[in-house]
């Protein structure tokens, strides 16, 4: 284990890490509540995962194994650079295998493979406030959270159904955590929402620009908002993965030429690769 000279372990200084850990403890104690924290400048721009990277930096230890995914994939720019960053400043082992990781930092997806106790899922969150498009005053949204008054979220769904016949929110689909706080699950597809419910792993959410941290402790009830006669329905493209043949996983649609050719492949590269390797071995 070697860390780059001149950097503290995990890049952040110890006092910043303690401050973030205090916010994390509070966030775990009050599931779904957005805890303000003093977000630090990080060596990457806002919107590239400054919140998630600070959370990871303050919980990571020398024995941890880190996996970073971006839209489900381990090999995209954001995932590669963050993984390399922690390999450099913390000297930790990294992996692309979901089952082997102790910390998984993610942008926009929850891995397909079920997570287990002891794992930590760190989400990068661009906008922690689920109601910000409906109520622009953050002081007012804090009051709405305090009073647990979430009717404006239902108005948005009402408008969706009135216009399109169904709830037209396919990602960043708001959830109620432990029947108390309305929470943005970060821009994951609504397909992933059911995985948040009673997940054995700890889920931490970091929003760097908005300076908020929130958390869902293991086995916490997470319910997607809906109407009695228009129940929540996760959205999945009606197709089969061209590489591993999965009919269950979340799919990316890829345009292959300019004559309308397209194919679907799994967005979770580890899940897809593991399945494809298993099929080859079977043959």
């Amino acid at each position: 284990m070697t860390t780059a000279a001149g950097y503290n372990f995990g890049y952040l200084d110890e006092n910043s890490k303690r401050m973030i850990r205090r916010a994390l403890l509070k966030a775990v104690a009050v599931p779904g509540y957005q805890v303000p924290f003093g977000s630090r400048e990080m060596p990457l721009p806002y919107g590239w995962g400054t919140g998630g990277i600070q959370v990871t930096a303050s919980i990571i230890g020398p024995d941890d194994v880190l996996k970073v995914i971006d839209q489900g994939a381990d090999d995209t720019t954001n995932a590669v650079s963050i993984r390399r960053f922690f390999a450099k400043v913390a000297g930790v082992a990294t992996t692309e295998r979901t089952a082997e990781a102790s910390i998984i930092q993610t942008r926009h997806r929850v891995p397909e493979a079920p997570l287990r106790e002891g794992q930590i899922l760190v989400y990068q969150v661009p906008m922690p406030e689920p109601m910000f498009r409906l109520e622009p005053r953050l002081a007012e949204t804090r009051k709405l959270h305090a009073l647990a008054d979430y009717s404006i979220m239902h108005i948005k769904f009402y408008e969706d159904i009135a216009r399109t016949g169904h709830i037209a929110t396919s990602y960043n689909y708001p959830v109620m955590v432990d029947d108390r706080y309305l929470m943005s699950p970060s821009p994951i597809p609504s397909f992933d929402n059911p995985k948040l419910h009673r997940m054995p792993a700890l889920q931490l959410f970091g929003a760097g620009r908005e300076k908020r941290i929130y958390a869902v402790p293991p086995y916490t009830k997470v319910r997607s908002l809906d109407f009695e006669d228009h129940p929540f329905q996760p959205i999945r493209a009606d197709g089969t993965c061209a590489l591993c043949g999965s009919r269950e996983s979340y799919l990316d649609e890829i345009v292959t030429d300019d004559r309308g050719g397209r194919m679907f492949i799994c967005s979770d590269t580890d899940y897809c690769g593991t399945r494809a390797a298993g099929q080859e071995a079977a043959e």
Partner: protein
Amino acid sequence: MSPLLAAQGLGLRFGTVIALDDVAVEIWPGEVVAIVGESGSGKTTLLRVLSGMMPPQAGRVLYRDPEGGQHSLFDMPEIALRRLHRSDWGFVYQNPRDGLRLGISAGGNIGERLMAAGHRNYGHIRAIAAEWLARVEIDPGRIDTLPRNFSGGMQQRLQIARTLVTSPRLVFMDEPTGGLDVSVQARLLDMIRGLVAELDLAVLLVTHDISAARLLAHRIVVMQQGRVVEAGLTDRVLDDPQHPYTQLLTTSVLSA
């Protein structure tokens, strides 16, 4: 029987300006009380204090809940006061833009209070919204129209529908006919009068329009410079005014 809302000894100053000076008002179930007076007489301030939006510097406001319990308005926790404003009370603003969400359809505007009250069935909410649009004389076919595409009179009627949908017992109205032309005013007043009788509402109405007060109100409270100068039954106050200011007010009305 006891009053829905009772205020005693209300006092409030803005610097040296006296907005309320020892004001007492009571509103009983099912009655319409009009507060009249010229601009700057403290009418709107009184309405804001009585509805819990602004605390007075002196005096108290007592509210009686449907179970008969008495609550001092400004000792209630904010959460209870907010719930009150969404259930047992309603507030109709002079400018419908203050009371409506202009970017949300008419149906959504009416549905908001229902959803705040815990309704979670889309079909049910929509049916109630359509029914209320018909009651305030808006074509239910326009349930998905944005209020910003409605005329001023329609916006005001929509605001009233949105306020009354949870069947409040007490409604505060701040110049509900202000800014509307005369024929639209007449229709609106007619509609409010019908709804008040039908739903057995108590209404506290602030207006500078004496004829609106005569049409709607059972009782009138006349204010001048933050003081109540005269109060009584509408006919008595308007046909036999005792205070010089009330006399001036009633004789200032132009008859067409």
